[in-house]
């Protein structure tokens, strides 16, 4: 291109030639440039071109003899060919270089300009930018350069009008920087004479340089100007929301007391990309967690726009985003779906199409678009590669573009190209005004230079550098005393090696043999010190305005819909799961009912009446419901915990999440219960009860689901959850009422005449009772007879058992009374009186109840039923009363009996065999035996002063003595509550649903989790009885230590004693003699036999004296001045020891 242009209008001149030579030499080095320079010279005709073949190879164009038109056509052709091979960025650079060439000689002839213009057009550079480029290259004076796309770095007082300006002290002539917006290219030009260094190399005036990302301009006076500053200045035009991120004196302590971060101070504003680097264990992730608000620092503050992040979190909703190191993805969904649902949560007002467009955009920019329909899978079952998982992880946060973003190692595991792509994306975000913190490990040179600032941490959380990344290298090199410390990057290629920093920081001491020691030359505190002494970081004042938030969280209902949609999709996509869930219940029903479909051998076919296994079937169905419900839900919340953690930043509603889960589980349960009942009941030919069974089992399923959700949310590992399941299941089984009769349980928990309280809290008891009662009472056969049978049972019980019990009590009292009257010396009168009272007490208690029930028959002498007033008249009256009752109940019985018999007769007349066929089809004999408690020997029992009916519980109405109490015996056909009787079946189902509701409440408030956490916090050493044990343990150890000391010290047995007297508590003193005596003789006699003995003697004396008051001690000392002195001193020394 140059040769073409140079050839115009009289050929090349010296300046131009110089320019070309200089350029090629600088780019390629002397060796490489030579060939090209010769080629160029030949092309412009300075050297004779003998070699035709080589000329052709160089594609030399012979322009001689061509008309201008022909020439332009050729030039256009060449330009087009070039256009196809290079991208826009490169084209712009070429274009500017062309201009540069012409500029050297300032020969802006028409021809040349025409060529350049034509080239510009073919290169598809926009007109604006062509114009700007021209202005930039050609103009010498300030006015021509005062356009918006140029930036002045100027020391002058006058500021340019249209162009941007970065002030720089003491700079004589201005530096000009052109911005080509479409490709974010920057060109630099300097016309002055001062020393200015671009990336460590001095720049020539008159030349145009490419100002690449990460570049630094250093002037002899004044601060350096960084690439990011230039960019920021150009961006300052755009209205970005202002952000200030101030970290002051941040300190973080781990729970075990170790300090993770210390004395972190820095300030940032919007539009910056900040890197965090450090060796492993330096505290990078800790810092990230504290800065993003996940963990709270022990000291110091993080303020965003003046709002403290940790104390006023709700004001900063939606401002922060965090991309963690581990990928938190929903494994069952595809890449697209993961992103789609995440977006749905963030943008309330956008339509579905808009959201989908967004998702597509982000996918494309991260190179995931082709994989969008692949399922994510988990680390064991990877369906997309690790790098893609990482990119998806990033995409999830990127899509909502939070104003402040924290990224933890986005490039680990990615190829270098992918890494650059990701970092590019992040830096694009900063151009939009975001503040991004990135923890990065081993960045490549290109990525390293992308950062605006770098925070470097050393082990233990020390901040050892905060500033421009390339300067960091110079800084550390300087501190290491390296020679070329000023060269942050390689002058030729611009390559930067961040590893140098760590080599310097962690450099180890070398010992005299030349081997590396374990300790470092400079430890972290010193680095921190040096940094604080040297560099004063800028402090950005807190911005007053509210930080921008890009989050528009949808309302509760919408959230619910999204959760439902997502959960449903994720379940449905796992075919195994769906299949198992749908088939497990009916399969169990099939197996169970098939196994127990018993036909007695002398019957031709199966008869429901005779199947003895129906009752266990009912109970097993309930257990199946519990098990299935529990296992389906046990891992639900646990599995989601990573996702929940990520969504913490979105502040979504917990209740909508839980309700969505509950809805989905409930639907699954409904289907499972339905399938189970359909299969089981039809095989066992339980007729007409399907809906009832389904209602009860469905309620049980849901209850089990709720229990499962509770434990799923409370524990931190899946195994713990499963270990807990038997603990939940076995009490339900044991206290359900089927395996163990409630009357035959341990008396401590048993209740007489009522279901024990422990069983009342078991849902299985309620469901089992509901089904048993329903199956007996309302089946197609019994429903015709139940009311009358109930009456019959009631009357018969009263007549046969109740009245006779009362009658027996009466007879007993009468006999006792007679014995008293006989004054038989054998009997103790007091005892007899007690027995009378015992009998009368029963009457006193029961007769009023009975009078309430049967008001027609009364007993007037009720008040006389006491020992003193129990005359014969009274007993006769009572007897009469009882016989009246007997008759009454007899009549009642007959009435009911006749009703039943006539009904049976009627049926038999209408349809012979009706009774039997109906009975065989709908009624079960074994079930009847159980609900009627047929095998119970005691039909009636006396408890305190009441009579409790044990017989026929199914025909006995519930106890209605209290208004509120609903507790009753087992198999009661109805329940009494708040003044009304309710059918047991519906009442029990309602109770089970209430229990489920309670479980939901505990789930919402995370009650179980809190209990476990509280239990974990109990400091066991503070409990009283444990305290003593621990102290005793400590004392024993002290003794052992002392014994060991004595064994090693030959001289100081005396001091040991004295020490012991000081240190140990009284209880240990008696032990002392045991320890000392055997040792002393052995050790001391060989050493100093003569000296020690008198000492010992004195010591023996003195020891008791230590207990005595001081006066005597002083006298002793006065007696033996010499010895006391020496011994005193040794004692004192030893005391100190």
């Amino acid at each position, binding site marked *: 291109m140059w040769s073409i242009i140079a050839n115009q209008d009289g050929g090349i001149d010296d300046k131009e030639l110089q320019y070309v030579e200089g350029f090629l030499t600088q780019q390629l080095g002397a060796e490489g440039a030579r060939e090209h320079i010769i080629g160029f010279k030949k092309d412009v005709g300075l050297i004779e071109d003998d070699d035709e073949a080589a000329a052709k190879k160089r594609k030399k164009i012979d322009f001689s003899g061509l008309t201008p038109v022909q020439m332009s056509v050729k030039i256009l052709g060449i330009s087009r060919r070039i256009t196809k091979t290079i991208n826009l960025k490169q084209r712009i650079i070429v274009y500017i270089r062309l201009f540069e060439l012409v500029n050297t000689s300032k020969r802006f002839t028409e021809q040349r300009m025409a060529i350049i213009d034509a080239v510009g057009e073919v290169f598809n550079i926009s007109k604006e930018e062509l114009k700007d480029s021209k202005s930039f290259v050609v103009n010498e004076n300030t006015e021509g350069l005062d356009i918006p796309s140029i930036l002045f770095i100027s020391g002058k007082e006058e500021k340019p009008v249209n162009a941007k300006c970065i002030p720089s002290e003491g700079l004589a002539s201005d530096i000009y920087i052109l911005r080509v917006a479409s490709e974010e290219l920057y060109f630099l030009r300097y016309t002055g004479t001062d020393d200015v260094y671009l990336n460590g190399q001095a720049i020539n005036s008159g030349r145009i340089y490419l100002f690449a990302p990460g570049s630094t301009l250093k002037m002899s006076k004044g601060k350096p100007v960084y690439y990011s500053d230039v960019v920021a200045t150009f961006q300052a035009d755009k209205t970005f929301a202002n952000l200030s991120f101030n970290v002051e004196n941040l300190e973080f302590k781990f729970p075990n007391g170790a300090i993770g971060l210390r004395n972190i101070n820095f300030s940032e504003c919007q539009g910056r990309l900040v890197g965090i680097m450090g060796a492993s264990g330096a505290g990078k992730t800790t810092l990230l967690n504290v800065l993003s608000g996940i963990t709270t620092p022990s000291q110091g503050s993080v303020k965003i726009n003046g709002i403290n992040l940790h104390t006023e979190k709700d004001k900063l909703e939606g401002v922060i985003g965090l991309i963690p190191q581990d990928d938190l993805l929903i494994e069952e969904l595809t890449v697209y779906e993961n992103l789609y649902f995440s977006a749905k949560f963030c943008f309330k007002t956008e339509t579905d199409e808009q959201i989908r467009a967004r998702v597509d955009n982000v996918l494309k920019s991260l190179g995931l678009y082709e994989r969008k329909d692949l399922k994510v899978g988990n680390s064991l079952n990877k369906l997309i590669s690790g790098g893609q998982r990482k990119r998806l992880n990033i995409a999830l946060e990127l899509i909502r573009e939070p104003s402040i973003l924290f990224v933890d190692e986005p490039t680990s595991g990615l190829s270098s190209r992918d890494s650059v792509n990701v970092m590019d994306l992040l830096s694009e975000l900063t151009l939009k005004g975001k503040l991004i913190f990135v923890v990065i490990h081993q960045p490549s040179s290109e990525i390293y230079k992308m950062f605006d600032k770098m925070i470097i941490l050393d082990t233990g959380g020390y901040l050892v550098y905060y500033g421009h990344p390339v300067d960091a290298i110079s800084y550390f090199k300087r501190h290491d005393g390296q020679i070329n410390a000023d060269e942050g990057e390689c002058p030729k290629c611009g390559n930067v090696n961040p590893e140098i920093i760590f080599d310097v920081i962690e450099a180890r001491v070398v010992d005299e043999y030349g081997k590396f020691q374990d300790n470092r030359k400079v430890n972290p505190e010193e680095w921190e010190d040096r940094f604080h002494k040297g560099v004063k970081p800028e402090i950005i004042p807190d911005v007053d305005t509210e930080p921008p938030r890009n989050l528009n969280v949808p309302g509760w209902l919408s959230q619910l819909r999204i959760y439902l949609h997502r959960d449903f999709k994720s379940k449905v996509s796992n075919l195994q799961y769906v299949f198992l869930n749908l088939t497990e219940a009916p399969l169990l029903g099939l197996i169970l009912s098939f196994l127990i479909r018993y036909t007695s051998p002398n019957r031709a076919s199966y008869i429901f009446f005779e199947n003895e296994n129906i009752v266990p079937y009912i109970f097993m169905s309930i257990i199946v419901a519990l098990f299935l419900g529990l296992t389906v839900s046990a891992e639900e919340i646990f599995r989601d915990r990573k996702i929940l953690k990520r969504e913490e930043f979105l502040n979504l509603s917990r209740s909508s999440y839980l309700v969505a889960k509950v809805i989905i589980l409930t639907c699954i349960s409904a289907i499972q219960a339905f399938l189970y009942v359909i299969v089981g009941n039809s095989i066992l030919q339980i007729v*007409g009860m*399907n809906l009832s069974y389904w209602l009860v089992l469905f309620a049980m399923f849901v209850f089990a689901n709720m229990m499962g959700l509770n434990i799923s949310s409370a524990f931190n590992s899946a195994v713990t959850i499963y270990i807990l399941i038997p603990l939940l299941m076995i009490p339900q089984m044991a206290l359900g009422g089927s395996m163990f009769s409630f009357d035959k349980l341990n008396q401590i928990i048993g209740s007489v005449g009522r279901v024990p309280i422990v069983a009342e809290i078991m849902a299985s008891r309620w469901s089992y009772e509901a089904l048993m009662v329903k199956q007996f009472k309302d089946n197609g056969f019994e429903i015709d007879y139940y009311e009358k049978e109930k009456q019959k049972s009631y009357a018969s019980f009263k007549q*046969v058992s109740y009245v006779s019990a009362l009658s027996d009590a009466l007879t007993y009292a009468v006999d006792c009374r007679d014995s008293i009257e006989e004054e038989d010396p054998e009997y103790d009168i007091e005892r007899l009186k007690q027995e009378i009272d015992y009998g009368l007490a029963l009457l006193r208690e029961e007769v009023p109840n009975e009078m309430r029930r049967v008001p027609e028959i009364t007993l007037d002498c009720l008040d006389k039923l006491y020992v003193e007033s129990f005359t014969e008249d009274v007993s006769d009256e009572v007897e009469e009363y009882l016989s009246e009752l007997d008759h009454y109940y007899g009549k009642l019985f007959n*009435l009911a009996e006749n009703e039943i018999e006539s009904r049976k007769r009627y049926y*038999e007349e*209408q349809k012979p065999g*009706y009774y*039997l066929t109906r009975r065989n089809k709908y009624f079960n004999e074994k079930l009847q035996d159980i609900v009627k408690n047929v095998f119970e020997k005691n039909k009636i029992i006396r408890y305190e002063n009441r009579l409790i009916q044990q017989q026929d519980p199914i025909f006995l109405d519930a106890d209605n003595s209290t208004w509120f109490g609903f507790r009753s015996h087992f198999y009661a056909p109805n329940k009494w509550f708040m003044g009304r009787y309710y059918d047991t079946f519906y009442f029990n189902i309602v109770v089970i649903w209430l229990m489920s509701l309670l479980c939901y409440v505990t789930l919402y408030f995370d009650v179980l989790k809190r209990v476990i956490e509280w239990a974990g916090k109990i400091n066991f050493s503070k409990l009283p009885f444990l305290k003593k044990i621990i102290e005793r343990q400590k004392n024993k150890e002290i003794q052992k230590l002392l014994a060991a000391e004595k064994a090693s010290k030959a001289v100081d047995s005396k001091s040991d004693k004295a020490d012991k007297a000081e240190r140990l508590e009284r209880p240990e003193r008696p032990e002392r003699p045991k320890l000392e005596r055997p040792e002393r003789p052995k050790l001391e006699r060989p050493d100093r036999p003569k000296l020690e003995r008198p000492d010992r003697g004195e010591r023996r004396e003195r020891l008791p004296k230590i207990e005595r008051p001081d006066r005597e001690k002083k006298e002793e000392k006065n007696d033996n001045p010499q010895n006391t002195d020496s011994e005193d001193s040794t004692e004192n020394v030893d005391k100190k020891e």
Partner: protein
Amino acid sequence: MHKKWYISLMLAATALMQFNCAGCGGDDGHIEYHEEDNLVSDVNFDSQAMNEIISSFSSPVEMAAMIQSSEVPFSPKYLVNPDVVKDYTSSFKKALGLGFLSADLGYLNVYSKTSLVIDYLVQIRSLSEDLKVGQFFDFQLLKRLATSDDNIDSLLIMSVQSYQKMDEHLRNNQRSNLSALLVTGVWLESLYLITQVAKDQYSDDFKDRIGEQKTILNQLLPILKLFHGKDFESLVQSL
């Protein structure tokens, strides 16, 4: 996508309807019954007469003892199959059945067929519970007695006592129809046993006994005739 939803919902709805009516299908046979005022008034007859009948005719045990002494081997085909009794629906039949089984129990005991006794006892208990006269049988005691050979006499006495008490109770409660049926059942079954045995092995003793039954029948029939109802009428006729 939405189409799939609708189709599956429809399927679910139809399935549910099936579900609910699963019981409906078989329910077409249900017969409506309206209660009538049919207080069956009881019949009073002399308890003395009843007592006489009870004590007069040979108790089943006696009968059985006689059969055994004549060295007729045990034959289960004479006996009522206890399971049949399960299908006795009305109290009329149940009372009769109770009588049959009691007689058979005696027979079994004489031949010391303790293994079969249990079956009979279970059915006796069930029947008596149904009739609400279970309180008169001490089943534990009965079981013990019936399964040991030596206590035939006590079994005899006990059973007579029980029956008397039961009878009294039934009559006191205006259920004397059942009492009569019970006695009839016992008598009928004993008669049957003897006649069957006599068929196989005729002896004069048997002939005499059978003859005696005629007198008892004469005493029984008037009592039975006192009761109303189709069942009794047919019973009387067949007798």
